[in-house]
Every structure is written in C-alpha cells, then in structure tokens.
C-alpha cells in the first residue's frame, strides 16, 4: 500500500523543499589551504619571471656595450674604445647602451614618474592659487577661466586614457545595443545588416581612426572642442562595439522557445515581450559582449592614442620612444605594466557586473 503513505501534508513537504533550497544558497566553503597554495605558486612564478628578465636584460646590456666598444675601436681607434668602455663602466648617462631595461631600472623609473607626478601636481596647485583671483574676475566678466597648460604627468595620462575609453565604451553601447536588439528581432534587418557587420568587423583600428578623423575634422572646423579626444573616443567606440553588437543580436534572436511560448500564451504585447522576456533572457550574452568590448576598447585605445597624438598612455609611450632619454625604455616598460594591470582590472569589473546581472553563472 504505497499510496497510503501519501497523506496531504503540503506544509511539511514545503519545509523540506525550503531546506533544500536554503542549502543550495549557502556559499561554498573556501579552502584556505588551497588558495594559499595558489597565491604561493603565483608569487613564485613572478619571482622566476623577474629572474629571467634580470638575466636577459643583463645579457642584452653586455651585447650592446660590446658592440659599442667594437664600433669605437673600428672607427676611432683603441684610445677611443678604451674611453667608451670607461664611460660605460662609470655609469655615465651619456654613453649607456640603449637596450631592454632591467627590473631595477624599471622600478626606479616608476618611482621617478611618481615623483614627477607630485611635482607637477604641486605646480598645478600653485598655478591655480596664483590665478584664482584673475579667474574670479574673468568669470564675473563672462570670460573663460585660465587653465593650466603644462605637461601632463604619467598619472594624468592614465586618467585621460580611462576617460577616453569610458566615453568610447559608452558610445559603443549606445550604438551596439539598440542596433543589436533590432537586428536580433527582425530577420530582414539581420540580413540587411549582416554584410555590413561582416565587412567592418575586421577593419583595423588605424583605418577607423582615419575615417573618424576625416569626418570629425570637418564637423568641428569652427569649434573649440577637444577634437583629438573626440576622435580617439569615437574610434575606440567603433572598433570595440562589434562584440556587443553581434552578441546582442544573437542573444535576442535565440531566446529559449519555452519563454517565447509563455509570452505567446499570456498574449503579451510587443513592448512587454521585449522588455520582460526577450531582453532579460539575452542579458547574459549582452554582458559577455560588453566585457569583450571593454577589453578590446582598452587594447585599441593605446594604438589609437599613439596615432592620433591625443593625450593618454598611448601617446606617453610614443613620446618616450621618440624622446630617447636614458630612462625612456624603462618608462615604456612601466607604461606596459600599467596598461596590462588596468586592462586586467577593467575585465574583472566587467566580470563582476556580468555575474551580478546574470541569472545563470557566467564563465570566468
């Protein structure tokens, strides 16, 4: 008599179900031993990396120094060669071999850049203090305030780059998500846009920059807007938007048929169907696209700044390369690490956003 054991006890069953649901909610226990081991391995590998870098940089330094001495010997004779050798050994700035900087040199350069930033900020503050009275007068007279036009520090450049990438990202979202939704919903539109996406997606950032330059230059002919900033942020947006565009359209066009059936059975209107069923279902894919867009935008930004001569990390790298001071190479490496770390942090931020909006677990 199996049936006899099934009395109507919805409450107890409910409590059982609740317990099951609650137990699923509990966060998984963090294994401290495991994470400690993970951190240890990471630190160790960093150390190995630094050692290889140090040894490699030392070797390259030797090669460069030898070739310098050799060259002096061939062209100017033994006396000149000895002079060059002595100069290199003395550590004089004027005759250092130009090659890959060692980790210590990079560390020094990073500190120099920080001190430089402090100096410039101080100068800036002093400047504004000095012109405060004048600016107040100008403001009263309806004139534009005097601004500091000195050289930006490395830290300033970082913030300029972040600003550019943020604006570029917003531009790409404004373009990509609405278009993605429209072409996801409509087969005809998708066919109409398909060639455009396929053709323009692989176009290099350089070409986008030139295209945007052609248009923006003419449009801003008689205005005092920051043209280089506009050009670089629009180019960043155009280069990076494709991932979001494609992901949005795929997400919108491949909504689970069960959800569509629910919308049909409940006779939901078009607006409700889009905002309550289709878009929420597409959100995980849209945010995956946005995450890719952010990392592409950051990567492309450096190249675009480098070309557009707009202020930022890219132009910093380029200027240091052109500059050729004895710590320029080290500064470039510092910029490289900063770019990498910021890119990584941006990706993490997008990952958290992605996870918080997703009803399914996102892939790390």
């Amino acid at each position, binding site marked *: *008599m*199996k*049936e*006899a054991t*099934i009395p*109507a*006890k*919805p*409450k107890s*069953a*409910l409590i059982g*179900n*609740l317990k*099951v*649901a609650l137990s*699923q*909610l509990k966060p998984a226990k963090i294994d401290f031993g495991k994470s400690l081991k993970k951190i240890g391995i990471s630190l160790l590998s960093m150390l190995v990396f630094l050692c290889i870098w140090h040894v490699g940089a030392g070797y390259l330094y030797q090669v460069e120094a030898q070739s310098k001495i050799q060259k002096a010997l061939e062209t100017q004779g033994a006396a000149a060669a000895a002079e060059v050798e002595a100069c290199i050994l003395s550590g004089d700035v004027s005759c250092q071999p130009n090659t890959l900087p060692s980790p210590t040199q990079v560390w020094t350069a990073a500190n120099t850049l920080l001190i430089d930033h402090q100096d410039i900020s101080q100068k800036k503050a002093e400047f504004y203090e000095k012109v405060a009275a004048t600016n107040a007068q100008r403001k009263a007279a309806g004139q534009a305030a005097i601004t500091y036009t000195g050289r930006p520090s490395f830290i300033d450049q970082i913030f300029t780059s972040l600003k550019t990438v943020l604006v570029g990202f917003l531009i790409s979202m404004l373009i990509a998500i609405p278009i993605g939704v429209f072409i996801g919903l409509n087969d005809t539109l998708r066919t109409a846009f398909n060639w455009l996406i396929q053709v323009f997606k692989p176009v290099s950032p350089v070409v986008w920059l030139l295209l945007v330059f052609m248009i923006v230059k003419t449009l801003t002919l008689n205005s005092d807007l920051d043209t280089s900033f506009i050009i670089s942020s629009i180019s960043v947006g155009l280069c990076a938007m494709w991932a979001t565009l494609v992901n949005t359209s795929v997400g919108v066009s491949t909504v689970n048929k*069960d*959800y569509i*059936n*629910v919308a*049909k*059975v*409940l*006779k*939901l209107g078009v607006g*409700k169907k889009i905002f*309550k*069923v289709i878009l*929420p*279902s597409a*959100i995980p894919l849209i945010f995956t696209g946005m995450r890719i867009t952010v990392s592409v935008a950051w990567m492309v930004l450096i190249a675009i700044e480098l070309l557009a001569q707009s202020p930022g990390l890219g132009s910093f790298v380029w200027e240091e390369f052109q500059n050729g001071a004895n710590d320029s190479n080290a500064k470039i490496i510092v910029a490289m690490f900063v770019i990498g770390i910021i890119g990584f942090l941006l990706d993490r931020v997008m990952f958290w956003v992605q996870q918080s909006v997703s*009803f*399914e677990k996102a892939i790390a």
Partner: protein
Amino acid sequence: MSAIVEFKNVSKWYGSGANRTDVLHNINLTMKEGEFLAIVGFTGSGKTTLVNMLSGLLEPSEGEVLFKGEPIKGTSLDRGIIFQNYSLLPWFSVYENVALAVNAVYPSWTKKQKDEHIRKYIDMVNLTPALHKKPKELSGGMRQRVAVARVLSTDPELLLMDEPLGALDALTRGNLQEEILKIWSANKRTALLITNDVDEGLLMADRIIPLQPGPNATLGPEFIIDVERPRDKTALNTDPKFKEVRTEILNYLVELGEASKLTQSDTYVLPDLQPKISSGARFPFLKKAS
C-alpha cells in the same frame, strides 16, 4: 452541457514531401464543459502536439480544432496551459512570474487588486514563504507549483496540463494532484490532463482516452471513470468499479504496446546478403587457414 472543445478529423505532420513526419492522424474528440479529461499515452506519441494545438501554439495540418464552436487561431487567455517543463522566467521571482500573468489578464485592475490576487494564488499553492525567490532557488515541485499558480491566477475557461507532474517525485506529485483537483472542483472549469501515468488519470479524470503510439497516432476508445468525487487514494484501491476500469485500461495499453512492437519489427526488411569469403580474394588469410 455543450461541447467546449471539438477536434474534427485533425491530423498533424511536420515538414513536407520526403521529409514529412506524421505525428497525429485523424483525431476526433469532443469535450463537454466542466469535465476533466485525461489523455494517456506513451512518451513520444504526440501528446504535447495535441495539447499545443489546443493552446494555439501549433496549427493542425488538416482538420479543425474548435473551441466554443470557433476554430482556434493563435493563443488565447481563455485557454491556460501548464507546460511540461514549468517554463518559468528565471529572471523573475515567484511573485513576478505570477504577476506577469495577472497583469496580462487583468490590465485594468488597480495595483492593490492585482497584488491581493497574486498573493492569493501563491498562497493557494503554499508558496508564500518563497514569494521573492527566483525559480533557480526552488525545488522542482515548488517550481511546478508556481507554474500552477500562474495558470490558475488567469482563471482560464479551459485548463490544459501537459504532463505537469511528470518530473516530480511520488510524494510531491500526490500533493500537487490533490491541490489541482481541489482548485478545479472549486470553480468547475474544463480541464485536459496529458499524462503517461494511468493512475494519475484514474485519480483525477472523469474520462480517460488513450493515445495510440505514433507515428500517425490516433485516439483509442474512451474509458469512463464513474467513481464519485472527492476520490480518496486509499479507498480507490478497494473500489470494485475502479479496479475494473484500471485493469481494462492497463490491458488495453499493454496490448497497444505489444502491437506497436510487432508492427515496428515488421517494417525491417533484411537485405539478402551472402558472405564473399569463399572466393578468398578479399581475405587471403582465410584461404591460408583453410
């Protein structure tokens, strides 16, 4: 009592030409208002197709499906359906899932009216403690209750249930069967239950019609379950009328199952092949051995 649902020579197939797959063939069915009909059948026999033609998600390839004398065109809020796989929207909480349906059916109601209505139905399926949980956080039985609450809150004239309890354990299944029956008997709507469990049909329905296994599935003879309601599960097992119908249906289904096995084996035509090893040309090692 007039006929609320009528199937007139309905056939359904997918694709066309050489790719045509027949699912249902020549279905004729009439449902009276207020009755509880169960259709039992083997998995893959086209039960879901049948119910989707009633909900309006699918159209018949041939014949007509009438609801209150009118051919069914598209979905309607008069015909509510409980899907086989719950089909809850995972980004909405229990409350919001039911609210979506209530907003769709009663757009003119005030916020307070809607709120009370939503809470009433969630309470009816005993889910008030899980009001603001997402489907992901619920067990299968709880999810199915949400689906039940969602449909019942729209108060459909015809309640369609597509194997609603198929994925549940026996205990939860029993509880939900009783809950659905309780709600159905309270406002006496017409109900169609699709199931693969004969006992479920026997407990809940007034009439059971088996669906013969596909392809080209068609309806079998009907079995009237003339047992008084409310039916008690334990008492049913000793009821002679009930036992008789149960044996009849089971025998019929067993026969059907065997018949389909036989017809299936008939369709295999074995090729007349002879092994070629006698020549020895293709398998020289065999020649050597002999």
